[in-house]
């Protein structure tokens, strides 16, 4: 079942086209890895899906509702409703430093969702247990390691019960020995059939966990497909060159 359709996305900064004719679909339970060299437009593409970037042309629809149709955005109220179906995990975590781990998780549901605080509390307790940080509930983010911070950021996004979770290079700011714990949480989510779009440099993760890989270069999708095809039998020279560089 398709839950997100993206077609002909275009964006430019002045004369520089950062996104050209980006088209892809997201099915329910998909785990899509978006790979490609730095500056290829991966992050911009991902950010445009949650309206952190405005696009200049193209269409994005989520569960049949148009966020933007042929370059025209819907009303602000609807934009909010549509983007609320998506959660986002940032490269630099963007946790709120003045709130404890627990408060980071509970603030948005309390402010935005009309739920009882008992429900919210229960969910935050469950999620903290899931990411293995129950003992850190009352700590401030400043006390956590990078890997712990990113796990909290994932839990914070999950608190809003998103249909799709977007990851913007979630392990790129981490020390190599800390990437594992974050990738493990993401693998667990994939196993629970969370729909995810992951911009990543972790080829291992893309191979193992994703069911679809999108290779972007220079603002366009060069090719996409199942990881076993794309990694073992890339069709284009650009893909081959990138994979050769990335896989040593």
């Amino acid at each position, binding site marked *: 079942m398709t839950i997100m359709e993206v077609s002909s996305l275009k964006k430019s900064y002045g004369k520089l086209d950062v996104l050209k004719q980006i088209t892809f679909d997201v099915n329910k339970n998909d785990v899509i890895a978006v790979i490609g060299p730095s500056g290829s437009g991966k992050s911009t593409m991902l950010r445009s899906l*949650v309206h952190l970037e405005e696009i200049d042309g193209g269409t994005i629809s989520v569960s049949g509702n148009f966020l933007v149709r042929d370059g025209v955005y819907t009303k602000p109220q609807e934009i909010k409703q549509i*983007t609320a179906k998506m959660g986002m995990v940032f490269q*630099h975590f*963007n946790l709120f*430093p003045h709130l404890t781990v627990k408060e980071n998780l509970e603030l948005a549901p309390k402010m935005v969702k009309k739920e009882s605080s008992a429900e919210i509390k229960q969910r935050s307790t469950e999620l903290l247990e899931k990411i293995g940080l129950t003992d850190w509930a009352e700590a*401030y983010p400043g006390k956590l390691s990078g890997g712990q911070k990113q796990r909290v950021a994932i839990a914070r996004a999950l608190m809003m019960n998103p249909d799709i979770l977007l990851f913007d290079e979630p392990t790129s700011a981490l020390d190599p020995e800390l990437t594992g714990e974050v990738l493990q949480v993401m693998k667990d989510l994939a196993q629970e059939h969370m729909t995810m779009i992951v911009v990543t440099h972790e080829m291992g993760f893309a191979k193992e966990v994703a069911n679809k890989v999108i290779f972007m270069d220079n603002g366009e999708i060069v090719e996409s497909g199942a990881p076993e095809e794309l990694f073992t039998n890339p069709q284009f020279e650009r893909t081959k060159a990138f994979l050769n560089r990335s896989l040593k």
Partner: protein
Amino acid sequence: MGDPVFIFGGFPMSLDYLISILKPMLEGAQMTVLLFLIAIVASIPLGFLLTLAVKSSFKPLSWLAQGYIYLMRGTPLLLQLLFICFGLPMIPVIGEYLVLDRFVAACLGFILNYAAYFAEIFRGGLLAIDKGQYEASKVLGLNKWQTMTRIILPQMFRIALPAVTNESVTLVKDTALLYAVAVPELLHFAQTAVNRDFTIVPFVVAGVIYLIMTIFLTVIFKWLEKRLKFE
């Protein structure tokens, strides 16, 4: 006057003498503290509003606020005080309605001046906040008001705190400018005693009183900083 205890500053010191000069000086210090409290309570919110005005996307408002800050920071506080106390009444036609009580005029001057400094301090605090904080708030569905009050401002005040401390200490000492517009405060009574008794003891006492006030203030702010450390 009791028995001299020791000689200091050319004057035979005694406890009685100290007490006799301390009384009016502490009364003066009350004026100092009152001015300080009024100025700080009013200029911090006003400064914050100025920061918002500077950041406003409505350009004329932003320019007006920037011009105001430039004016207030670019001219001496003493000149501003003299202008409000003695200058305003000299304006033709409306001047006669602008004769203010000296203390009220001084409060006004301090508030208007310090608001400009606090505005710049808060602006610095806002600039120091990563744009990722706004993005995370947006993606989590917080509206602009919630983002401002729950995420941005608490961090801004925390970042601005050391600079606010510094500015507040300066304010305590600047209250001595009341002397120039003839409002009787701490320094005024010290000066009176110095002239009358031909001794520098009252100046030393005044210095000690200022020190006690600033130490008190520093301790409060340090405590606040510690409490807001987020650790």
